[in-house]
């Protein structure tokens, strides 16, 4: 017997609204479909009405976890449009924040993966250790989530000797804990049994479906914007692109843990070789008519901003492609022939960061089996009518 179950838009495994419609046969998934748009905020349209400075903070709010990724991507694009170049110290601090953000995002992801597999202890420990890097970011930028450290033409805050020492000290702890989690990740049998061999994405399918980031790197494809198209100061940093060949969720865990270790190396290098000098240059308010494609390797994959200017202080067009969107077709492929129990893990393995929109609810009448699509207004009317007809009983209904 086949039946279709909506996973989302409200579901405990999903931290943001998205609808996955699954067709099961028993516990096995036969068909998977994705419906986006529950959280669409019209940012691309809004960006056309705001100045470049204002857009910096708007792009920051595309995502809470990779907020620095979007501002950096936008800021380096606008810097090219304005034909200015950020000073080296500014670029170093920008890269440092980017790598700290990657550390925090990957630790967060490890915890979420543990939680989706019902391994809450792992979740609590990783999130506790993530606080270390969150504290660093807070001290560095003045806030925990939206760092706002970028500005057009550099960064807004300098880093002093005390902070530098503190970050270097905390790194030791983070490296120790990450190595410990690597041991746990491959040793705890209940966890490994859940992630090994689950959510297969072959190299060829991954490439054909344009997957990005750790999702495709876990299928053995070397694709990393930091190496292919170096921005900021990545060209002078020593690091390797981490890949895995197992093509499953375990591989994605391994890639992310390896990337954590690479990030620690980079942070150490950046702090030890921090050049002196100014942190930003003054940016004009207006940009000449031009266009630019800005690419950035966010923790989840490639981030791309296409910015077109028209000579005013506002962009003519801002196109944002967040990495998660690129990974959806691949996710649907991975879900096929999986178990119900694997849905949260497979879906979490792309580290989804959902930014989309909609106002409809799909309702299935259990008796007739027919589907009704209700808009929010209709649903509200329906619920008001229901409670008018069936008032909540005031007297307690004690079952004894």
């Amino acid at each position, binding site marked *: 017997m086949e039946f279709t179950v909506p996973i989302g838009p409200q579901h*405990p495994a999903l931290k943001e609204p998205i609808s996955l419609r699954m067709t099961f046969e028993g516990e096995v998934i036969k068909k998977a479909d994705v419906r986006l748009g529950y959280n669409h905020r019209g940012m691309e349209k809004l960006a056309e009405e705001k100045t470049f400075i204002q857009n910096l903070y708007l792009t920051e709010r595309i995502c809470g976890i990779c907020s620095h990724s979007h501002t950096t991507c936008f800021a380096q694009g606008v810097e090219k449009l304005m034909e200015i170049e950020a000073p080296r110290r500014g670029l170093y601090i920008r890269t440092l924040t980017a790598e700290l953000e990657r550390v925090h995002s990957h630790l967060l992801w490890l915890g979420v993966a543990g939680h989706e597999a019902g*391994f809450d202890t792992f979740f609590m420990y990783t999130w506790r250790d993530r606080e270390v890097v969150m504290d660093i970011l807070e001290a560095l930028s003045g806030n925990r989530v939206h760092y706002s450290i970028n500005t057009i033409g550099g960064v807004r805050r300098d880093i002093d000797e005390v902070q530098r020492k503190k970050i270097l000290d905390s790194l030791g702890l983070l490296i120790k804990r990450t190595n410990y989690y690597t041991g746990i990740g491959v040793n705890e049998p*209940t966890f490994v049994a859940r992630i090994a061999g689950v959510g297969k994405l072959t190299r060829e399918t991954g490439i054909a479906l344009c997957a990005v980031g750790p999702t495709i790197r876990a299928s053995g494809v070397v694709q990393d914007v930091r190496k292919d198209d170096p921005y900021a100061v990545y060209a002078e940093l020593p690091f390797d692109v981490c890949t895995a060949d197992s093509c499953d969720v375990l591989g994605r865990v391994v890639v992310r843990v390896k990337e954590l270790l690479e990030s620690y190396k980079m942070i150490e290098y950046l702090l030890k070789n921090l050049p002196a000098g100014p942190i930003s240059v003054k940016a004009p308010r207006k940009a000449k008519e031009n266009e630019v494609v800005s690419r950035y390797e966010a923790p989840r994959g490639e981030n791309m901003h296409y910015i077109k200017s028209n000579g005013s202080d506002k962009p003519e067009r801002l196109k944002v492609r967040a990495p998660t969107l690129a990974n959806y077709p691949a996710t649907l492929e991975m879900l096929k022939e999986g*178990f119900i129990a694997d849905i949260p893990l497979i879906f979490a393995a792309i580290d989804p960061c959902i930014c989309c929109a909609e106002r409809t609810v799909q309702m299935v009448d*259990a*008796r007739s089996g027919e589907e009704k699509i209700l808009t929010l207004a209709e649903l509200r009317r329906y619920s008001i009518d229901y409670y008018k007809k069936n008032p909540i009983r005031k007297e307690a209904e*004690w079952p004894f």
Partner: protein
Amino acid sequence: MAVLKTLLYLFIYPGFLFLLVYSTFCEWVDRKLYARFQNRIGPLHTGRSGILQPIADFIKLLAKEDIVPDAADKGMFRALPIFGLAIVMTAIMYLPLWHYDVSRIGFNSFPGDLIVVLYLLSLPTLVFFLAGWHSTNFFSTIGAARVLTMLFGYEVPLFLAVLSPAILAGSWRLAEIAQFYQQHPLLLLPNIIGFAVALICLQAKLERTPFDIPHAETEIVGGIFTEYSGKKLAMFRLMADIELVVGSGLIAAVFLGGFPGGLFGGFVYFIIKTLAVIFLLSLMRAVTGRIRVDQVVSFAWRYLAPLSVLQLLIVILIKGLFL
């Protein structure tokens, strides 16, 4: 006098009232331990160190709106929480706590009461299945199917593991088994494999991590409890807590030498031994992640069942050669 004693037994200790208080206390212990294993604080503000938090949660749930879905089988949907609660409350009557005489057969202690307790502990699983099935929600139905699938895995090893100490003691009566091990405490040692198997199976029966598959919230929302709310959910929560007490009491009676010492001694032993079992169960919950339902069945039949058969073999050998 005997009637009064029986009434006390049914309603105060270890019956209704004691169970209500002690099961919420056990939930608090479990939550606090789980939190401390995870380096968190755990419940803190309701009562001293949050000791009243489970009761507060219970009362809060009682006050919530109670929704019965249109498509559900209304009679069953309403009756099942009370039915389940009654079953687990009955089960504790047969634990040899107080008000029994080893030499005489009473209403709460008779040859074969071990089987009755095991049977009464199997019924809640059926209640969960029926609750999920009669909700007619997709997630509940999947949860219900998982409850039964899991039952096939852990039930047989649990029975085998619990029966082996009974065979060694030569009795099907809990009071006599306990008395046997109080007289020969060293004979508890050969049962260690059975104890481990029984603990794992109990964890599965209580549907706690790594076996919280029927209500795995990241997969099937609330599982069997998806449609339950308000008072009915409160009943189910209380039922799970009492099941925890009864299950650990059974393990303590069979594998840890029972509860000697009449009313007060038995009370103290009961608290200490059940808490020890609950500590182990909490540890197991903290140390593992959730596994898949097919993995439960294969794990149970590949490891637990052979281990419990091995335990049976050891017990039979000991009995045949030394006793």
